[in-house]
């Protein structure tokens, strides 16, 4: 008698599983909008086409996660020249509790500052995988709960989709403070532009080029994007007949500033626009710091996603740049 012959009609029983979180919990955040979180976190993932591997050892993107009573944010630096950051406000969640360590008597003497947030290094790709474990379609009924037990404890995701439960426990490590950039001194230009226009401006670039020149100026055409590559020269300018107020929502253009950037670093800044961005504040300083501040919208919530890119050092010119000098 084979195993096949033994099967007949099914029997049924119901029992809820036993689950308990034994560790002390310092942070809990719960929401039904799992897919929105996955979308926001995915915008800062940079896809390196050269290093795309299929084995599990390369499935890492370590970011600094900061949890405060007001927000939970994720950011990472690539050297000193690229930073990506996204954050979720406590108001986005149905439930959000963060208990910072309380000052004890012995701390008063040495005057050390109390931390205003928990900070740790964690693998963002694992978090995104966890969020998408039941699929990444928008109409999923998945709820997620983030749980953190404090220094040294794992960052935990508890997911529930119609009674099926998944627990994703991710190791946390020590981290360093993210780089800070001076976006004001000595002189900077700022524009606030709607994302559709920005996407249009960068949309048709020759992405096979390695560099892009970005220029912001108080004189028409105000905003210029140029590449030089295998497909020749490409230059985008806004309609020179239009006034600055017609193109930008707002602007502060003090002097002409132009810098050269590595195009692969600009690409993720533009890709993020496709994820439901409403508008972007673009800042460019004389010292070569470029910052994209996108406002991504999910439902009625707004989420800032910020990319900071440092220009290629002005001492590294080569003959190709002669084609891209400003007039």
């Amino acid at each position, binding site marked *: 008698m084979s195993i096949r012959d033994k099967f007949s009609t099914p*029997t049924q029983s119901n029992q809820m*599983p036993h689950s308990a979180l034994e560790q002390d919990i310092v942070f809990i955040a719960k929401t039904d909008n799992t897919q929105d979180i996955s979308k926001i976190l995915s915008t800062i993932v940079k896809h390196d086409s050269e290093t795309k591997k299929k084995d599990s050892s390369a499935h890492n993107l370590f970011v600094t996660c900061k949890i405060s009573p007001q927000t939970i944010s994720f950011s990472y630096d690539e050297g000193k020249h690229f930073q990506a950051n996204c954050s979720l406000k406590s108001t986005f969640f149905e439930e959000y509790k963060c208990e910072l360590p309380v000052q004890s008597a012995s701390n008063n003497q040495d005057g050390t500052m109390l931390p205003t947030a928990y900070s740790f290094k964690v693998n963002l790709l694992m978090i995104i995988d966890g969020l998408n*474990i039941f699929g990444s379609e928008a109409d999923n009924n998945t709820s997620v709960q983030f749980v953190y037990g404090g220094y040294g404890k794992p960052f935990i995701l508890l997911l529930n989709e119609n009674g099926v439960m998944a627990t994703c426990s991710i190791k946390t490590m020590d981290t360093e403070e993210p780089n800070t950039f001076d976006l004001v001194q000595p002189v900077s230009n700022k524009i606030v532009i709607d994302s559709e226009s920005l996407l249009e401006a960068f949309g048709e670039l020759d992405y096979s080029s390695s560099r892009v020149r970005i220029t912001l100026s108080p004189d028409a055409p105000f905003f210029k994007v140029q590449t030089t590559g295998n497909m020749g020269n490409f230059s985008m300018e806004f309609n020179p007949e239009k006034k600055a107020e017609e193109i930008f929502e707002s602007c502060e253009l003090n002097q002409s500033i132009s810098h050269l950037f590595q195009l692969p670093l600009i690409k993720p800044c533009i890709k993020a626009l496709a994820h439901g961005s409403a508008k972007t504040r673009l800042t460019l300083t004389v010292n070569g710091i470029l910052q994209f501040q996108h406002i991504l919208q999910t439902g009625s919530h707004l989420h800032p996603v910020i990319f900071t890119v440092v220009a290629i050092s002005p001492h590294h010119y080569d003959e190709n740049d002669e084609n891209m000098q400003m007039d």
Partner: protein
Amino acid sequence: MKFRAKLYKSKILLKLVQNMMKIHTECVMHITPKKIRFIVNSGDIEDGIQVFYDLPSESFFENEFSIQSIANNEIQFQIQLENLRRVLLSAINSNDITIRLTKKQSEPYLHFVIKSSSSTVVLYQDIPIILLTTQQLAMMTEPILPDPQVYIQMPDIKTIQNVIDKMKNLSEQLVITISMKSQLTLQVESPAGSITTHYTGLSHPLIDTNKGKDQAPDSSSAIVDIKKILKVLHIHQLKPEEVVCCIFEGKCLLFHVIIQDVSATYYLPIIIK
């Protein structure tokens, strides 16, 4: 040795063959008056997946079927799945497909005559096969196993495949735990963390076991290779009515799949630590 049949349900057979190809490139066909069995073995015998697909002759060959051999009217042979797939694909718009065992220059072939639905075109296709003896077939029978420790009806296989697909980023090994209290747990673990998925409210098929109720364990676990189980779970593409999973402790993991009147049984090796 003679074999001649008209093939019905060729589209389903094509889907089955495409599914078999996820496991390996060739298979053994064992045709008897009652059933057609496909045996697919991946890789080596020690470490591979073994699958047995059983199709009732009555349903796929109907009444127009004759088989004759000295071995109890049973024929068995080895065939390349890609050849079978191509022939079935070319027959996709035909209602009139005849298969015959033939010999060309003393080599055996499976000869297909495919008449198009408009009866204007006739296709002839020959697939080379390697005939096997009953002794050779006897070496490919299903493993002899005791009663399973635990068994359960799986939830939707497609979602399980998606879940395990994400888990494979963490580890090459998956731990499956079946509890006789209607629960199933899938888990992967690595120094970087762990992912656990937990299903409740599942059903258990009734199995005729020799064990008394007291002797049955509450739950049992098995460790399997993630890539292998992902290959098995492709069967969701055929939208099975039922998928049962059994753990034979220390021996293997079994999936029994029912797709209309076809049954597929998968034997997966268990990793013993």
